[in-house]
């Protein structure tokens, strides 16, 4: 009887967790208000140390992303459906940002695929998807990527065929790297997100 009870509980929990994958705004933290300097440093996801490489083969660190609001997602370039789609979603957000604000917002994709997503693969992906100069594609070590996934609350698992199962999350980071908003799923409202970014810029 106890097992039955617990298993119901689990089915319930699983059912609940699935609900979140429709495009809802996961406001797990209200970081938009008055965060002190110290708090904002200690809550920044840019605390992950180490070097990353961009699609232009430039060595970089996460703190280099500071100064702009960043729209961030984790992908892998050989992904058939979800990653191109999430990239399209972010492109749609970019289109909805006011021309006067475009220099204040950056777009960053981080690859899960530390083995296969070489700099040239990232470059090709950026070219194929027509990602402009405001986009940064990053590759890092397995450990860096896993740690970042923990901070962005992105689940992923490598499959035997080399692809990745992963949750689809777009994260909006403030100028210091503190999470402002998270959007889960593949049906996001680009206009609404652009509006949120605009108000965060003010």
């Amino acid at each position, binding site marked *: 009887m*106890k*097992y039955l009870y*617990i*298993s119901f509980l*689990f*089915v319930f*929990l*699983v*059912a609940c*967790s*699935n609900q979140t*994958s429709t495009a809802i705004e996961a406001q797990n933290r209200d970081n938009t208000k008055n965060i002190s300097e110290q708090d904002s440093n*200690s*809550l*920044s*996801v840019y*605390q*992950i*140390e*180490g*070097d990353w490489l961009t699609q232009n083969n430039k060595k970089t660190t996460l703190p280099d992303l500071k100064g702009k609001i960043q729209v961030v997602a984790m992908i892998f370039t050989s*992904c058939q*459906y*979800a*990653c191109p789609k999430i990239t399209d979603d972010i492109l749609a957000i970019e289109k909805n940002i006011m021309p006067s604000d475009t220099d204040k917002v950056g777009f960053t994709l981080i690859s899960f695929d530390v083995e296969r997503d070489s700099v040239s693969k990232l470059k090709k992906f950026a070219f194929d998807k027509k990602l402009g100069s405001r986009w940064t594609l990053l590759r890092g*070590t397995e*450990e*860096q990527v*896993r*740690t970042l*996934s*923990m*901070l962005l*609350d*992105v*689940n*992923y*698992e490598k499959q*035997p065929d080399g*692809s*990745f*199962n*992963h*949750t*689809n999350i777009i994260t909006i980071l403030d100028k210091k790297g503190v999470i402002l908003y998270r959007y889960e*799923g*593949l049906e996001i409202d680009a206009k609404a997100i652009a509006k949120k970014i605009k108000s965060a810029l003010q």
Partner: protein
Amino acid sequence: MHVLKIACFALISIKLGFTKESVFREKAQDPTVAQKEMVLVKGGNFTPFYKNANSKTIFVKPFYIDVHAVTNADFLRFVKENPRWARSKASRLFADAAYLKHWASDFSLGKDSSLLEDAPVTNVSWFAATAYCKWKGKRLPTLVEWEFAAAAERAGKALSDTNSLTAFILKWYEKPAPRMLPPTKSTFKNTYGLWDMHGLIWEWVYDFNMSVANSDSRNAPVNKNLSCVSGAVSAANPKDYASYMRYGFRQSLKANYTVANLGFRCAQNCK
């Protein structure tokens, strides 16, 4: 066996000499000292528990793993040397508000310290556990490594059948967590020489955030339904059920969460 071990030491030392810049800032201690409290788990093929039918067999490479979970005394030493991991200092991004709540203060276990010292440290986040292992020159075991090591039977007196380990685990799952955890090495030692893989605490693993319940990169709704159905099916098999509980529990965690009966042990590469 000894030759293998020495070769392993050598390889690890060479490896550590060239470690890349690390995510966490903790300085690694001498790994050969740390390894005394570890055992070598020879790798092999392992079929981990999965929610659906296409369970795959994975080859697990040999690795070292701590004989017992990290204790409060061990963790106190770490915090003293790395004060940014003190209860009041750690960022909420890396450890939630209940981090080390069972300690009296930042650097003291309090009046229960004689009981706490040898008990496994709990109320620690994945980030804190990762930083501790790094400080030891180690790392967290992967999910597959942990499950592989935990699947071993009790050492010495063999259990009557394979279900007995499961029966033991399920019995433990049923019991509410005690207010004060018993010390490490208080449950049983398995055939690898590892203590308390079941029956004492839950343990963090490196890649606990594998997407299990919501696993398709396309987020296909069909698969979600399947996961619920098969969940109920595997629950009918008590052997899978113990694993199912662990996978379900991990699924519910976030890396900054701390839980009163969730601790960790460290592992290390061999090769």
